[in-house]
């Protein structure tokens, strides 16, 4: 599929934000509290900076290769070398995309719709995924902008918590209490995952590539930071550690004059963000597989991916299993996020050197 239209920087930022913000948001404040202890929200800033550095790396690949896409850079290798690597990356991305959705649906069942079977929820999700993935990236990006406006208002709901917010509750202690900086830090880092997919579409962004990517990550980080900061002043520290889904409790605490228990609705709206995460990871999978198997028609490939996803979704039976899977997958994904751009960078530099040498001869 040839891309004619290019993404505007705004669309790219929003795309990054929507891929990043997924199901982890609902328990991020607890993760932060477990990892960094008191006033852990400061730690989020550090992690966001690490992500920005990684984004810079991705941009560097793009810059040095003079605007080539990842697939163009990689094409100097014969297909049989790239096959295992691509299959691995595609597998990891597929599993991540699928399990993020599965986890969301499972939480949805535990909290609100206990009687709805997982099959129905997932079927709905996959039908929507199919409809989005049928289009090319430009169309997906356009719909993300719509979804962005659908969901961004939920951020302003945080204002409802101000009456219960107290600075005294933040305590003067920084990173104290039981902390688990390294493992917890990686866990929090995974909440920001999703930006690494930009390596596949950075060349499609019209202009200001680096800025738009970093802007996307900044939107996510600011929202994460806001939610976590409010949670720290809203819950007492020990309570925050015990809250399974602090953000769901936050949402549930909001009361409107006429409506009770609005979180049923807001939580479901969050599902759109999770949907975008799934869609984009599956898109990444599709791009990689399409490159490897050029002969297969894209619709068939897509349906194949979705069928595999659907059946994979039912392998873990309970939330605990999904969490276990997600832990390993996100570790793999983190490794990919760092290693892939480095690998590409080396490739680009190496190719350049080869070219120069051949030119000299």
């Amino acid at each position: 599929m040839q891309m004619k239209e290019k993404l505007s920087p705004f669309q790219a930022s929003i795309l990054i934000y929507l891929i990043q913000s997924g199901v982890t948001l609902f328990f991020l404040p607890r993760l932060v509290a477990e990892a960094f202890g008191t006033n852990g929200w400061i730690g989020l800033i550090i992690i966001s900076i690490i992500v920005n550095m990684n984004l810079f790396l991705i941009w560097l690949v793009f810059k040095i290769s003079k605007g080539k896409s990842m697939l163009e850079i990689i094409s100097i290798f014969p297909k049989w070398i790239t096959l295992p690597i691509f299959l691995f990356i595609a597998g990891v991305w597929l599993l991540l995309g699928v399990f993020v959705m599965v986890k969301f649906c499972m939480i949805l069942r535990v909290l609100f719709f206990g009687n709805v079977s997982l099959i129905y929820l997932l079927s709905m999700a996959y039908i929507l995924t199919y409809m989005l993935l049928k289009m090319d990236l430009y169309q997906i990006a356009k719909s993300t902008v719509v979804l962005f406006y659908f969901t961004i208002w939920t951020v302003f709901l945080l204002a409802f918590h101000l009456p219960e917010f107290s600075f005294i509750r933040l305590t003067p202690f920084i990173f104290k209490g039981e902390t688990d900086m390294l493992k917890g830090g990686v866990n929090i880092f995974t909440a920001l995952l999703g930006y690494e997919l930009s390596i596949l579409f950075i060349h499609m962004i019209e202009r200001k590539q680096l800025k738009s990517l970093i802007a996307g990550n900044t939107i996510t980080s600011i929202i994460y930071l806001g939610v976590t900061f409010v949670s720290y002043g809203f819950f007492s520290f020990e309570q925050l550690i015990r809250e399974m889904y602090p953000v769901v409790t936050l949402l549930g605490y909001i009361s409107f004059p006429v409506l009770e228990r609005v979180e049923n609705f807001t939580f479901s709206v969050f599902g759109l963000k999770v949907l975008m995460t799934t869609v984009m990871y599956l898109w990444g999978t599709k791009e990689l597989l399409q490159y490897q198997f050029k002969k297969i028609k894209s619709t068939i490939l897509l349906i194949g991916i979705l069928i595999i996803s659907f059946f994979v979704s039912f392998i873990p039976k309970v939330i605990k299993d999904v969490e276990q899977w997600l832990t390993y997958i996100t570790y793999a994904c983190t490794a990919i996020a760092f290693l892939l751009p480095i690998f590409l960078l080396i490739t680009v530099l190496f190719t350049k050197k080869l070219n120069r040498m051949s030119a000299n001869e």
Partner: protein
Amino acid sequence: MNKVFVSIIVFFLTGCAEQRIIDDLALINAVGYDVTDNEKNPLKLTVTFPIITKDGKYDRKTILVEGKSSKEAREKVRMKTNLKLESGQMRVSLFGQEIANKGMLPLLNSLVRDPSIGTRAKLALAEDEASDILMLQIKNEGQNATYLEQFLTKLNRESLRTNYNIYQFLRDYYDDGIDPILPVFRVEKNNIAYNGIGLFQEDKLVEILKPSEARYLFLFREEMKQGNFVEQIDVGEEEKASIMLNYELKEHHIKIQSSSTNPKKASIYIKLIGDVIEYTGKEEISDPKIQKKIEKLITKKIQQEGKELIVKLQKLQVDPLGINRYVRNKMNYKEWKALDKYQSYQDMNINIEANIIINSSGKWK
């Protein structure tokens, strides 16, 4: 064609969920917890929910069971009604005095763990038995649950803001610098009436403050912004006058003087600006001189009675004002963790520095 097909599938998928018809549901709106003498089933659970009688009237049903735990007792309730039990509409949980003395955490845990119960469900204490309050039939009042909920909302809006819901109670319980409090209700001449504030140490009820004492408690808690102050003051020799102020809390802060001294010193500063609503003394209240005098008298009164209350709180080792939070913010982490919080709180020297300003004398000179 494809789109039509897909939308039809999506449309029909929604019908696969379980149906719940509101007439067949028992929407529990209040529960009460008490202890029993029965060793096997130590928990008494009272559940009340609205029903529509056969002749179309709005009524309620109250079921009382004994069980081992709150959810086990709930299963027993299930055997006692033809309707399907739902806890999603629960607004008030009442705790009997005795069960609160033993500690509320196990019960609260089972409330907060259940996703169908919102964290804004309100909590209250019952003097003696919670079941007495929920079983009481007040004429023309209808649902006791709605009555209590409204009552609690009203207290909250007026000058008696406490930890009313599950979230707030647990927040203060898990905060190591403050103790939760809860309002107390009791049955009084076929009516349910507010009767003071229950003071907790951790999750155990320690003492119930009378409404007259509790007034000062709210004056020193920061959340409260305005209220009424009614007091008898000595205006002269052998002469007493009653005064009522509608006040606004302008300033409130708690200061801990230097962290290293032992016993520690704390001061609570409050600044009230009030309008006189009632004054029974002989002097002209509109006279600035008299106002100054009365301001002084009220200040003295608040400082004196407030001090008495705080000494009482210190003796009981309960910290509903959250003084320890301010102590914590003056220390480093190691010192704070090593500190015996309740002992240091008891030894602390807490002062009240009140500043009362009369704004006007109402619309009469």
